[in-house]
């Protein structure tokens, strides 16, 4: 098996901590908020207000669940348009009350179905991309498992994007790539290698700021380490004006594929 495809398998494992594990271990007093105020409440995305070392923050996560029952409840972590609209509602609320936003990203992709198309999956993602770019509050996204295409990007237009050591972030699943390009989904291993979807690849490409080590993944020390990182990063991000924050975020993404380096 190629090294990249091994990472794909690890990233997809249902034994990995999910968004709700991060939320309960890093934050206190999480108060979950439901619904997009348009249509319904999407179980694939959880979100709410919590305290990070006593400071109120908005936390949003794509939740996959562990057991089969949980996975069904959370639609296997594939959000519908109402999930993205809920996330955006919470982000706009965070902006209003000057709360930083922290997103945990873990999805094989946005939900693929008739209803999702009827309710504008493309429009819902597009709106997240547009609005996140100019959100006047610090934003940090962490890819904790799978960063699957537009469905993951919709919650990742942040000032900082971090990836767990064994997480992946890709424009398309290796299986999808293999079946479209080579008409052979068994070539997924080769596709995984070619797509450069590992955390190390993303760091090398300048697409993410940091890789989070998976030493003692899921242990108290692991969460304590990540918590400290978040606290420190929010101090850095809060030290600049809101205008600089959105300008730096714009420049961060503006630099990708422009042949120039980010000045952030």
């Amino acid at each position, binding site marked *: 098996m190629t090294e990249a495809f091994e990472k794909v398998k690890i990233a997809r494992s249902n034994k990995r901590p999910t968004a709700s594990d991060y939320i309960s271990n890093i934050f206190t007093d999480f108060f979950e908020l439901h619904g997009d105020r348009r249509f319904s409440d999407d179980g694939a995305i959880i979100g709410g207000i919590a305290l990070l070392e006593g400071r109120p923050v908005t936390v949003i996560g794509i939740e996959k669940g562990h057991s089969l029952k949980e996975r069904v409840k959370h639609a296997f972590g594939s959000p519908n348009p109402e999930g993205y609209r809920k996330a955006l509602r919470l982000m706009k609320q965070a902006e209003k009350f000057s709360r930083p936003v922290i997103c945990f990203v873990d999805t094989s992709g*946005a939900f*693929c*179905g*008739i209803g*999702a*198309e*009827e*309710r*504008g*999956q*493309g*429009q819902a*993602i*597009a*709106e997240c*991309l*547009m*609005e996140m*770019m*100019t959100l006047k509050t610090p934003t940090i996204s962490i890819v904790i498992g799978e960063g699957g*295409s*537009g469905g993951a*990007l*919709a919650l*990742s*237009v942040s000032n900082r994007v971090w990836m767990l050591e064994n997480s992946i*972030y*890709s*424009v*398309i699943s290796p299986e999808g*790539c293999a079946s*479209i*390009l080579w008409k052979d989904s068994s070539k997924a291993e080769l596709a995984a290698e*070619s*797509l*450069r*979807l590992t955390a190390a*690849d*993303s760091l090398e*490409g300048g*697409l993410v700021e940091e890789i989070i080590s998976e030493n003692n993944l899921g242990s108290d020390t692991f969460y304590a380490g990540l918590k400290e990182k978040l606290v420190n990063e929010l101090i850095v991000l809060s030290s600049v004006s809101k205008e600089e924050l959105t300008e730096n975020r*714009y420049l961060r*993404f*503006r630099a*990708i*594929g*422009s*042949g120039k380096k980010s000045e952030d």
Partner: protein
Amino acid sequence: MLGFLFQPKNELEKGGRENLPVGADEQEPEKTCPNCHKSTPVSQIWDNRNVCSCGYHFRMNARQRIGMICDEGSFTELFEDVKTLDPISFPGYAKKLETTRASGKEDEAVVCGIGRIGSNPCGIFVMEPYFMMGSMGTAVGERITRLFEYALKKRLPVVGFTVSGGARMQEGLFSLMQMAKTSGAVKRHSDAGLFYLTVITDPTTGGVTASFAMEGDVIIAEPGATIGFAGARVIEQTTRKPLPKGFQTSEFLLEHGFIDAIVSRKEQKEAIAMLLMMHREENCI
């Protein structure tokens, strides 16, 4: 019964060809409409803006569209020097780019520039369906981003024609990020009070639907165009349910509230010119 034995086997046995003027024996190529199955000479379809007499809209390349929409001689191309860098050295991609460029007129899947439509100045981008299915890689993202930044500086509206299979997977995560980059540029242009009109044409899917195609102040679509995020075949395989009639067509999106109007090619220039006029800054209070 044995007639087949005496059939001429080649032109010479038939007595040779008559000396006709060059080209006189060639019939004008015809195009068969996938909707009404009628064959029509290409020139006749082209005279009707690449639309069949039944109303079916054939695909159009970017230059044809620019010729159809812009006032004569008003279009100036911009950012044509922006080229992709094959950012992840994807196997076979460099070769694919080379052959695609050699076989067509365009060197990327979008043409950007400025021009006038019914005397209204605007920034224009037109995606190219015959270049890797209009897929968005770094060059497409960069050209469109630069166009919105340019239009913002010059306070111009933008008219964009989309046709795309989505993000170009051969450029990996770099192409996915173009969704965020272009959306950011659209947002800045929008926040400055400037007008953006999208014309969605067949087919517009994936990462382009989930970014700048759906971000216009006004979104119009050509009749019968396929517009969606996930591919219909993938949805059918995943859900194992029959898809509703007309699923992911312009008409379906209009019914569900995701586009403003369906405008046929014949009426497009007039409609676009009128919308641009209505958004001219000197015409607004």
